[in-house]
């Protein structure tokens, strides 16, 4: 009935992988004093890109003074995610070159332009929201909740409410497939 939940033997149990990530987070906090986060890196990177065109303007913008366009711990953390996922996919033989997610294709067809537009727009909206909320599912969802931060729990609940609304609108009237 629900084929997506059938456990694929090429992957690990999500509870195990999740719990191990919890140990990695504890280690990171213990050794480096750093909590997981990802969205600030997009601000720093946007600042680096804008600096190539108008360095003077960037240097005077409030937000880029607050989150300077430099490479820091979190920036390297995000780069690390890329390589960790790449190596894991390669050595387990689960690297999957795919332009369109299966669920998306069944609902919206094979147009790459359509997917690119939705994903780009989604990215713009998501990052604007993440910066307003001061964190994403890593910073608020994992690091915030693990510290029992009130902001983390509120953010996590709002992330899901917003996401469920968007998913309802996109897949309205479709049966589980």
């Amino acid at each position, binding site marked *: 009935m629900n084929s997506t939940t059938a456990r694929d033997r090429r992957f*690990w149990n999500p509870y195990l992988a*999740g719990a191990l990530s*919890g140990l*990695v987070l504890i280690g*990171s906090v213990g050794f480096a004093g750093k909590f997981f986060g990802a969205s600030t890196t997009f601000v720093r990177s946007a600042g680096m890109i804008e600096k190539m065109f108008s360095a003077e303007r960037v240097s005077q913008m409030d937000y880029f003074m607050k989150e300077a366009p430099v490479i820091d711990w979190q920036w390297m953390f995000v780069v690390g995610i890329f390589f960790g996922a790449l190596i894991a996919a390669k050595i387990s033989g689960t690297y999957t070159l795919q332009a369109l997610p299966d669920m998306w294709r069944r609902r919206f067809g094979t147009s790459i332009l359509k997917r690119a537009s939705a994903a780009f*727009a989604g990215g713009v909206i998501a*990052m604007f929201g993440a910066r307003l909320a001061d964190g994403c599912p890593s910073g608020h969802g994992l690091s*915030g909740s693990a510290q029992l931060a009130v902001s983390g729990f509120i953010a996590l609940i709002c992330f899901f409410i917003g996401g469920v609304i968007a998913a309802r609108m996109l897949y309205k009237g479709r049966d589980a497939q």
Partner: protein
Amino acid sequence: MNTLIYGLITGFLFGFLLQRGSVLRYDRQLGALRFMDMTIVKFMFSTVLVAMVGIYLLKDFGIVVLTVKPTILGAVIPGGLIFGIGWGLLGYCPGTSVGAVAEGRWDGLWGVLGMLAGAGLYAEAYPELKKTLLTWGDFGKITLPQALGVSHWVIIPIFIVGGFFLFYWLEKKSL
């Protein structure tokens, strides 16, 4: 320099585990938002429950200090909801979009580009937001135990028991 290397190693391990947990996928993320496949919830909650115990132990021994983000209702509620809507459209969050591209799901790249644009857009809006939304309902850097006036060792076991009930229920429903 050490800080940067720690960042790279930590990210590598986390990215490795995200891939092994099969959460770097649109289908998994939308699966959770459509209540069809709760893999990402299992992963996230397992991470949080384990980390919660370890971080508070380290804190009690004076080894670490918490880095709690302030609870500003005017920012975190609308920001969270806006993030959620974008997340539902994109199907990846900031960290997983990068990981998805790494495992070959390159539609994540549109998301990465969009998120860079979104970050630039927010930087433009920030001076205005700083005077408005970001000042509304500011409760400071509070944690749940502080807000309730109880020890964190009262809260943590409740979360763990609640988490196990949730996991049991998800498995029973084959979600």
